[in-house]
C-alpha cells in the first residue's frame, strides 16, 4: 500500500465513521458478513468488485475486537451482541490488509485478513 493511498484513506475516516453509525443499509448494497473471534477473522479473505459499494457487517463470537482497514481509512469496534457496519466502495484493484486493532490477547498480532478487489 502506498503512502499516498493511506493519506487519502485518512481523510475519509470521518465519512467512514458516519457510515459505520448508520442504522440501516440501502437495499441495493451488497452485504459481506465477517465474524471475529480470538484470533481470526472469518472469512480471512474477502473478494470485492471494483466500483461496487459494499457494507461489511462485523460481529464477534467472544470478546471485543477491532476491525481496521487502513487503505480505506476505516475502522470499527466489534463488540459482543452488536453488529458493526463499515461501508466502502473500492475504486482500485489490489490487495488490502485488514487487522484487529483492539488488543485481544496472545494471538492479537496475528489477527488479520485481506480484501482483494478485482
Amino acid at each position: 500500500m502506498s503512502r499516498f493511498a493511506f493519506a487519502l484513506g485518512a481523510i475519509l475516516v470521518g465519512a467512514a465513521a458516519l457510515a459505520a453509525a448508520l442504522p440501516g443499509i440501502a437495499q441495493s448494497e451488497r452485504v459481506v458478513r465477517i465474524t471475529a473471534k480470538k484470533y481470526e477473522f472469518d472469512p480471512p479473505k474477502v473478494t470485492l468488485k471494483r466500483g461496487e459499494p459494499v457494507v461489511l457487517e462485523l460481529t464477534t463470537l467472544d470478546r471485543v475486537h477491532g476491525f481496521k482497514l487502513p487503505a480505506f481509512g476505516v475502522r470499527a469496534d466489534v463488540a459482543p451482541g452488536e453488529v458493526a457496519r463499515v461501508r466502502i466502495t473500492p475504486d482500485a484493484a489490489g490487495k488490502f490488509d485488514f487487522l484487529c486493532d483492539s488488543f485481544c490477547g496472545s494471538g492479537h498480532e496475528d489477527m488479520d485478513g485481506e480484501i482483494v478487489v478485482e
Partner: protein
Amino acid sequence: MPYHVDRRDFMKLAGIGGAVFASGLGLPKAAGAAVQQDFFFVQLSDTHWGFAGAPNPEAANTLKRAVAAANALARQPDFIVFTGDLTHTTDDAQERRRRMAEFRDIVSALKVKDVRYIPGEHDASLDRGAAYQEFFGKPNYTFDHKGIHFIALDNVSDPGALIGESQLAWLSADLAQLKRDQPIVVLTHRPLFDLQPDWDWATRDGAKAVELLTPFANVTVFYGHIHQEHHHMTGRIPHHAATSLIFPLPAPGSQPKRAPLAWDPAAPFKGLGFREVAARTSGPALGIEELPLNKG
C-alpha cells in the same frame, strides 16, 4: 558536589564512539531552561517476560542477561526506564500477576535503584491496567531530572490504543506550566505517529499528543512496541524506537506479515539490546547509543 564522569565512557557516549545526537536539539544557552548537568539514563523495552516460543529459545534467560549487561556498564546511569511490554500477555489474571511478580524480582537485581516503568499493551490492555498498576503504579506521570521534564504517556491501557481525552487534558495542563524551550522527554510504548497502521504500529489519537507537544522547541520521544531501532521526525520532534529484549520484528512494511524475525543459533540474541541516552548541558541536548545484547 562535582559530578563524577568517567571521561572515556562519556566521550564515547557523547558522540565519538558511535552515539547519534538527535538533530534539531541544540539548546539555546541563554534561554534559561536547559539541561543542568550532564547525565545519562538507560531505556530497556519489550522484555515480554513469560513469552515462550521459537523466536527466542532463551526467553527464560534474556531478561536476566539484560540486567547483567546494564549492571556491567562502566558508569551507571542516573535511572533506568522500561518502556512497556514488561510481560507477555495472558488471559489468566493470576498468571499475569505471577509474571509481573517474577519480572519485578528479576529487575530488582539492577544496581541502579531508580527504575521507572510504563505499560505496554501486553501488560495492560486486557484488564485496562489493573494488574500493572498493582505492581508498578500509575501508568502516566511526570518527573524532572537535572533540568529535563520527563512525561510518561500511557497509550495502551485502553485496548484501542488510545491516550484518551482525560489523559490528553492532563498532558495539556502539565505542558501549560512549562516554558516553550523547556527540554522535554516523552516516554511511551506505541509510536505516537502512524508508523505502519496495518501492523497496528500507531496510536489512534497520537496526533493529538504530538499537536500538544509541537509548540515546544526541545521535545524528544522514546518508545518501544516495534522491537527495533527506528528514528522518525514529526515536524521538529524526533521519535526513537528501541530494540526489544525478546525478539526483533521486521522493518516496517518490509515483509507481508509482522512476524518475529527467526532466532539465529549462530548469533544468539541478535537484534536484541538496549539504549543509553546521554543528556548534555551544551551542544545537542541528547545523544543516544544502542547497545546490542550479543556484543561479546
